[in-house]
């Protein structure tokens, strides 16, 4: 693919992090190209959220390097990540419940008037504009987001990423709380953003979704990378095998977490 010839948008190399004794991420390398969607899969506790939180600056890795557009990136906190146009939609929605939609959308990057005072009216106007595009039914601009439904809250989180011109978008189970219609909306949005040249990490437990949206999949198990593959080179069953057994199929590039063939054979024998 011609995307592969350019420098990767994001290149995370040999990332390690542990919490106490738990090796949450153990030597994972993963990359992402412009206009590409990489689906990150793995069972609960595999380390997916932890890995992307390192990219978004929420955690500091114990070891490993991150390159953005081929240059080494220093990401020590969420502010640094934002400087590299990395925007994240977190699994546990990172919204302040007591604030309104507009206040959340601009949190940390408020618009101010000439005197330096918060320009709430302009922020609300911008929020109305962007949400009109993403979720035309959204009306609750005057209430704190605690009064919104899960889907409405999700649209605020997505609007925040879209508004600030993300180049690298991280979506950690963006549709987990959503109904059918809203899920379809997010899928359309992912396709649209992809066509605009963004790179997207999409974490999801829904293999169908991932096969529908992603160009590549990467599978994690117990903090390690089992392998990665173009969706065209593997079947959904093979990816399930990667997730559950750690078995890397022929069409995939094996990672450190792949279970060697002889060991698998022994398991199958028993």
């Amino acid at each position: 693919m011609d995307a592969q010839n350019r420098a990767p948008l994001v290149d995370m190399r040999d990332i390690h992090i542990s919490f106490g004794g738990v090796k949450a991420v153990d030597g994972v390398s993963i990359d992402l190209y412009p206009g590409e969607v990489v689906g990150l899969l793995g069972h609960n506790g595999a380390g997916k959220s932890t890995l992307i939180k390192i990219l978004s600056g929420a955690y500091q890795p114990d070891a490993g390097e991150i390159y953005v557009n081929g240059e080494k990136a220093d990401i020590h906190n969420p502010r640094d990540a934002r400087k590299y146009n990395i925007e994240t939609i977190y699994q546990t929605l990172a919204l302040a419940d007591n604030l309104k939609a507009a206040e959340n959308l601009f949190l940390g990057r408020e618009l101010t008037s000439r005197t330096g005072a918060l320009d709430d009216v302009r922020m609300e106007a911008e929020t109305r504009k962007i949400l009109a595009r993403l979720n035309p039914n959204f009306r609750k601009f005057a209430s704190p987001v605690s009064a919104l439904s899960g889907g409405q809250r999700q649209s605020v989180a997505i609007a925040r990423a879209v508004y600030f011109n993300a180049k690298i978008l991280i979506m950690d189970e963006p549709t987990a709380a959503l109904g059918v219609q809203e899920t379809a909306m997010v899928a359309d949005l992912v396709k649209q953003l992809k066509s605009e040249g963004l790179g997207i990490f999409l974490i999801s437990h829904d293999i169908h979704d991932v096969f529908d949206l992603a160009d590549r999949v990467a599978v994690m198990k117990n903090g390690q990378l089992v392998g990665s593959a173009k969706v065209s080179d593997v079947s959904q069953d093979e990816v399930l095998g990667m997730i559950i057994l750690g078995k890397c199929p022929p069409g995939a590039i094996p990672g450190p977490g792949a279970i060697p063939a002889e060991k698998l054979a022994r398991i199958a024998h028993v």
Partner: protein
Amino acid sequence: MSDTQQAAGVPTPVHARNPVHVDQNRPRGVGGMLRAMEVDVRMIGMIVALIVIWVVFDLVTGGLFITPRNLFNLSVQTSSVAIMATGMVFVIVARHIDLSVGSLLGFCAMMMGTFQTNWLPAHLGFNYPATWILAIAFGIIVGLVVGALQGFIIGYLSVPAFIVTLGGYLAWRGAAWWVTTGQTVAPLDRNFTLFGGGIGGTLGATWSWVFGIIAVAAIIFFAFNGRRMRKAFDFPLKPMWAEIVNVVVLSAVMIAFVIVMNAYPVPERAAKMYLQARNMPVPDEPLNWSQGIALPVVAVAVVALIMTYVAKRTKFGRYVFAMGGNPQAAELSGINTRRITMYIFMLMGVLAAISGVIASARLQSAANDLGTLDELRVIAAAVIGGTSLAGGAGTIFGAILGALVMQSLQSGMALLGVESSLQSIVVGVVLVIAVLVDQIYRRRVGTV
């Protein structure tokens, strides 16, 4: 995401012509009217409670409570706690607590006292015109530094605020004693003591009117400026009548306050002594001076205005509320929560110093036990005023009202000759009931 209905019982226009105007409701009944005016129902509840307290005390004391004299004293007595309560709102909203404010007040007052009485006169002479400014600036720096120290330990070293300020509660009270090894500092600078609201420490009739008129002008300006800005973007507006009712009510309260304060005369003898002390001619005929608004109350007004601006219109204020609503979200949004935490305690330190000015000026001396138990009064005022200990919710205006409610109870009981032990019991019970009522209200309305 298709959910457009609003709280149960609120009529929603099904066929809204312009979607932007959907959140506007037709007023229906008292509740609907209050909603249209966008006033906080909890705030109304507190104002009603305050009025009930005043009326009951007035009836029980045979008309001694609602008098210019008593209301004037009430306004002065409330000031020190009210000023600190505005800072405590920020502290509690950000899910912290500050138990050190009373001790810090005492420490700042002692530092300012020695500075102006024992140190400055040696260099500048007694009653040098700028002494009061230097003393207040010095006190504010002390408060700022102490607040920064506590805030640093809380924010950057992650020691819980409860522990740090409990340590501060003990340490600064001890430090207040050490400043003069326990001696009370007196007399304070003549200009400095005016901030206590005693003789000469009031605006007088004319300036009180100026103050009142400026306040009314500001009320009108803010109401219509906000309206104009929302209109520019074609946002939903409050109905015009609601805006006008708001403005009229607030302005009327303001004007009534000026009239009442002006109705309280300065005692003839005190007025003449004041003139004598300043080598001014003393006329033989009666002076008929009005007290007008006391300087401590002016200080409360200025502090309240600034703090409201900080809370509503600055990034710092927005971040404090965000941290209270969801500390993780604030952190992930790139807010430097450690630094904001330190700033919050620095602000609290400055306010404790300002309250120290008022408290010591009122007594015309600085004693090391000044501000004892104030931390509890301040926290109670903020909480009675609707600040949620869970963080994320609270208003400056509410905290000041809370301080006024508490002081009204205490003054009223003192007028009745209730023993101070019983006063404590009543104030304690009221605190718990206020929070209980608030909890029930929040649960029913479903807000955090």
